[in-house]
């Protein structure tokens, strides 16, 4: 049994691939064991809940049940997945009728395991859902991380952007209004963190960038303009949707607000990985649309 099980979610296999690559590389460097859940399904995000509540709960409960069966806390790096799983676990715990319906559904339709023949999938409500920020700060610890830093990112000015769903409506591991877990980790990595970035937890527009692009551009413009005004070299993020929205449309954003130059948008795990001396490619930096290398060179940190 590994210490943690890992739920990537759909985005980390697609647009959020660099998040997966850098997370796995950082955990390996810190000697944290994490095993991907077998045959996991989509969490339903915000879209399924808009169509069918009971099915949305059942969908997420299969993931929780698989994780319970695998053992260990469940790590969900995507903010939306993390919230869906955390909320679902809470609802199943607090609502006995709902739990009965979902658990009997799981046991009668879903199976787990192959070896001795698959067995019915049970769920007792014992799995804890964790975000990597929580695990890094509270399990591994800032000091243990700082000890392994070999290439501190000195002089790199970073705006920490947390997005919505890891701090709202629940905030089990950080302050709801001024979260600091990412700030502390980036400081331990040597970054010059813009602690007063006021839009840390303001919405990036989420899937509206796809459905109502004008609305999405409006929201990210504000986030980017303010980060630029505060001299950010990089914005650090913890969610694949935030990353894509902030990075991919900066050409359009620059037509609305003043941006001196494009700002690289990195997963916080990519920055931590650089500080740990992990090669850029292993951190998925070659997949960035806006390259961070010129910024790193300018700040005379390593390539």
């Amino acid at each position, binding site marked *: 049994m590994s210490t943690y099980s890992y739920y990537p979610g*759909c*985005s980390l*296999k*697609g*647009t*959020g*691939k*660099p998040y997966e690559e850098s997370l796995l590389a950082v955990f390996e460097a810190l000697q944290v064991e994490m095993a991907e859940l077998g*045959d*996991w*399904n*989509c969490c*339903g*995000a*915000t*879209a*399924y*809940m*808009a*169509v*069918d*509540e*009971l*099915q949305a*709960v*059942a*969908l997420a409960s*299969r993931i929780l049940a698989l994780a319970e069966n695998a053992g260990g806390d469940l790590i969900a790096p995507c903010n939306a997945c993390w919230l869906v799983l955390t909320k679902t676990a809470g609802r199943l715990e607090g609502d006995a009728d709902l739990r009965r*319906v*979902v658990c009997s*559904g*799981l046991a*009668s*339709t*879903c*199976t787990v395991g192959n070896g001795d023949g698959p067995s019915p999938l049970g769920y007792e409500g014992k799995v804890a859902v964790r975000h990597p920020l929580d695990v890094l700060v509270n399990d591994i610890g800032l000091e243990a991380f700082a000890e392994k830093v070999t290439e501190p990112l000195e002089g790199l000015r970073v705006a920490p952007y947390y997005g*919505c*769903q890891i701090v*709202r*409506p629940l905030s089990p591991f950080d302050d*709801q209004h001024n979260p600091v877990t990412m700030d502390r980790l980036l400081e331990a990595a040597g970054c010059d963190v813009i602690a007063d970035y006021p839009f840390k937890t*303001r*919405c990036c*527009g*989420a*899937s*509206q960038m*796809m*459905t*109502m*692009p004008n*609305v999405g551009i*409006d*929201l990210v413009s504000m986030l980017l303009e303010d980060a630029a005004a505060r001299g950010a070299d990089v914005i650090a993020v913890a969610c694949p949707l935030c990353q894509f929205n902030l990075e*991919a*449309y900066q050409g359009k954003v620059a037509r609305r607000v003043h941006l001196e130059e494009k700002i690289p948008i990195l997963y916080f795990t990519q920055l931590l990985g650089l500080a740990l001396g992990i090669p850029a490619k292993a951190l998925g930096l*070659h*997949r*960035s*649309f806006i390259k961070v290398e010129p910024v790193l060179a300018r700040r005379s940190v390593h390539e």
Partner: protein
Amino acid sequence: MATEPMIRTEADRDPGFSAWFTDLVGEEKLRECIHCGVCSGSCPLSSHMDFGPRKLMYLAREGFAGDVLGSNTIWLCTSCYACTVACPQQIPVTEVMYALKRKAIESGRAPRRHPVVVMARRFSRMVRKRGRLSEAYLIAGLAAQSGVHRYLGLAPVGIKSVRTGRFSLKREKIERHRELTALLDTVERHRAEVEAS
């Protein structure tokens, strides 16, 4: 946001909708809304909405189902929960938004080709059948159904995503997708039985 005064009469009210709405998150809980407007003030999307969440709560409570379920307000909500954590009456506004989205779809009042509605439907259908989301196919389907012209501007981003290996063209499917569909059918049947009894 619309600034024209809205004139409504008693005939526009649907008392059944009002009763359903006020009991949504606990009996009569939504009557506790004091219309302070903190939800609309904290909402990052409210300037793009037909009207903000405060007015939505008011119209819904008074039974103006047509205005509420036909508005873009519910579909612009991104579930950022800013309103939920700010509400002094502890009303879970985001959950109310979800319930209104479902009601709009169920009752056939959601605008059929509105991209957010199309997205929610296609997303859930894909996941229900295959167990996972394939981002490229979701977006292609979204463009096909809600108007290709809206998505031409995104082509360069799509090309960059493919080039950097971030846009998988593989159609994802989990191994035990039949079990998952059966699970969703089972809970659905259970609900139908409960509603019938």
